[in-house]
């Protein structure tokens, strides 16, 4: 009986968690804040960091206590500088161990949280950028039946781009075929009302850009198309009357969580 009565509340909480970006960011921040602290604790020389921090505190105290003795103040500042360098050296490698996986994780999370999927019946733009402006008139789209073109294509010679305004009649994941100079390539577009993983652009080459912006395979190397982009709307999360990108919220919450867990677990950071 007790379990049964708790089920709706649990279901509601689960629904909230999986549909509210704010809840997701908060939970992720806490988990990642904890992971950061634990990872830092395991990969760092805790004893050496504690000594470095204690020494820094001692030198700072010396500056306050012996304000009237110039040589003590000056030498303490020199020691603070050296001590800071030592502390940074001790923290550098562990921070790298933390930052690299976190960055990769953030990139992946941004696919979900950075943009919203296209809404049903809402217009969106698909932009194809070509290598050669002369080929602008030789590009066409092959649309699935659920997608329609709501305006003629705009050819932009100045940017070597062709832009289409499209709209989807149903939610789903669709593949749009782009035919350029006789070659065909595809771009996925996600139409959804809930949280969904989106890939704003499909690129040729540009390894690092692809790494951070695309979750689709690269366009063929010899393709006349350089990039195919969908303008997914940017997502802002509202909190206390302010709207902001999830990255800022994540940064704030994970730092808070990190400081709390550092104290709870007794890890020197």
């Amino acid at each position: 009986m007790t379990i049964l009565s708790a089920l709706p509340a649990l279901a509601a909480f689960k629904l909230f968690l999986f549909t509210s970006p704010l809840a997701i960011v908060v939970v992720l921040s806490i988990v990642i804040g904890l992971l950061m602290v634990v990872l830092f604790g395991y990969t760092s020389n805790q004893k050496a960091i504690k000594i470095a921090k204690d020494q820094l505190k001692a030198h700072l105290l010396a500056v306050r206590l012996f304000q009237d003795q110039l040589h003590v103040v000056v030498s303490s500042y020199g020691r603070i500088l050296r001590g800071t360098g030592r502390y940074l050296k001790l923290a550098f490698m562990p921070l790298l161990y933390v930052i690299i996986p976190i960055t990769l994780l953030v990139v992946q999370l941004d696919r979900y949280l950075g943009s919203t999927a296209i809404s049903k019946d809402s217009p969106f733009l698909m932009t194809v950028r070509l290598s050669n402006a002369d080929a602008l008139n030789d590009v066409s789209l092959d649309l699935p039946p659920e997608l329609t073109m709501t305006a003629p294509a705009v050819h932009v010679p100045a940017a070597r781009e062709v832009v289409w305004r499209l709209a989807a009649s149903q939610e789903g994941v669709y593949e749009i075929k782009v035919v350029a100079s006789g070659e065909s390539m595809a771009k996925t577009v996600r139409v959804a009302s809930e949280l969904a993983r989106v890939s704003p652009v499909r690129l040729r080459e540009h390894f690092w850009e692809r790494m951070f912006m695309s979750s689709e395979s690269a366009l063929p190397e010899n393709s006349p198309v350089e990039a195919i982009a969908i303008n997914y709307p940017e997502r802002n999360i509202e909190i206390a009357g302010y709207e902001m990108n999830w990255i800022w919220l994540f940064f704030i919450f994970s730092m808070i969580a990190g400081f709390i867990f550092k104290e709870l677990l007794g890890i020197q950071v």
Partner: protein
Amino acid sequence: MGWGRVCTLLLCALMPALFLSCERARGGSAGGKRLIILGIDGMDPDLLTKFMAEGKMPNFARLAQQGSFRRLTTSIPPQSPVAWSNLITGMNAGGHGIFDFIHRDPKTFQLYFSTSRVEGPKHSLHLGNWVIPLGSGSAEQLRHGKAFWEILDEQGIPNSVYRIPANFPPISAKGRTLSGMGTPDLRGTYGTFTFYTDDATAVAGAVEGGEVVQVEVQNSRVTSHLIGPENTFRKNSPPATEPFTVDVDPLEPVARVSFQNQQFVLKEGEWSGWVPVEFQLVPFIGNVKGICRFFLKQAHPRFQLYVSPINIDPENPALPISTPSGYSRDLAKEIGEYHTQGIAEDTKALSDGVLDDKEYLEQARTVLAEHRRAFDAEFPKFRQGLFFFYFSSLDLNGHMMWRLTDPRHPAYDPTLAAQYGNALEEFYQQIDQVLGEVLRKIDADTTLLVLSDHGFAPYRRSFNLNTWLLNNGYITLEAGSTPDANQPFAEVDWSRTRAYALGLNGLYVSQRGREREGIVEPGQADALLREIRQKLLEIRDPKDNSQVITRVDLASEAYQGPYARTGPDALVGYNRGYRAGWRTILGAFPPDVLEDNTNAWSGDHCMDYTKVPGVLLSNRKIDAQNPALTDIAPTILAEFGIAKTKDMMGQSVFHPR
């Protein structure tokens, strides 16, 4: 007992408490009494009667039949800011101090908006090209007197007042209010559009209601700037601007607009949705946010792009537009972005020929659709107390569409009349649909008032009062100068000028001690005004011998209250068909005293107040035989058992003494 059950029980226990505390915070209890007021700007009793008789407004017909329908005496003069201020305060202009859309400083002849003043900080520090404010600016409401919802707040009666005119910035209130007519755009004007074109024949620069910007199409691309508010952080306050690019397809009538990380495609003849825009005043520190709409009027052969006045962003208002301050944002979240500018219909763009009738009507329909969305969102939330909701569409579209219903009008065009002649009727019918929604949901404890601030009349001929004053020796120009048809009071010899006109109905005596170079002794002013009145009433239109002016009210006779002598000394009441000419309003001297009005602004109400009454309908019996706008505030208070204040002139329309 599991934790889920505990949570559920706690929630169940807390919800009613939360609800009750919210209700209390919103202003207490009205004892179940409900009063709904639909304020329909410019609804004309004659048109309403006609449409009801033709079966086109069944809900109004039902209300008139089952309740009451009266003509509502409007204000002197019958201008919206004055009329709504009468309604809000229960006083006439002598009490609330609003006499016109514009007022003048008698010492400097500087004109300013009558209802509000927005000022920058009083002191600032100049560092090179930068100006550092020492203090904050202010937005001040100039209407005097207590608003009826302030009194309701004091008595704990819940209320919400949506878009009532002459309430910018909104006065402090416990309920939800949103400012209406009088709210400026981001540039501080009543609405300034921008029109970008590569048409070499178009004259770049300011036109009556906007600005024309010459652009070039190079490699199918147009690059220009959106024009924002004055940047008071810069020396000489140049306008803040933001760049945008339009890529026009070389062949098809379609273009892509790129702007501040946003892109959208517009077909020729298509409007964008609301586009957020941020003007940077100080890099990384100071910015203001607005919203605007783009309209691609033509892609080829000429490039023509209209950008609406930049409205204050309701989600991030640069100036106060609602109470509580977050209400404008909450409403935007619920219904989408909306016009915040007080006069939302871009009538000037139609008058200037930037938009044609079809394009203007699309914009005007969008405004009404927004109002209806807001109404549909707010009305179901109404539980008790007062709910006031304002609609602007009949007024603005009455002004612009009258010519297409009036074959006698100089701007009548039979082809356009065939296409858009029933547009005004459509707007009336939409208001009827809104009333239908209300009638379906009211009960025996609910009082409904539907009212308008004034009616409407044709505006066929312009009377240039300053030219007439000049021709009749009341204004004298400097020796050897000729009348200037455009510049306000250019070359006027004030040492020999006894009277002048300013505003839509205002006539002023150049009084010693008040005007900078006034020559008429205060004791002689009324005699002079009576002399001018006599002559004005005798004027006949040479075209058909019609009387042009049917009444002139002296301020000393028409107004009561502490501000009675701060406005015009007399109010000129034009006959139906006549109004003050566009250029005389601002003090210029067009050559002809009377001229045809060929402007699209073709219907009006700024005339003899007895000729343009408003409407008053209720689901209850209205006992007052000649109700007036000043009776509405006492009526509202009486509905909640509150005595009217001593300043209020009128009385409840349900219980006249």
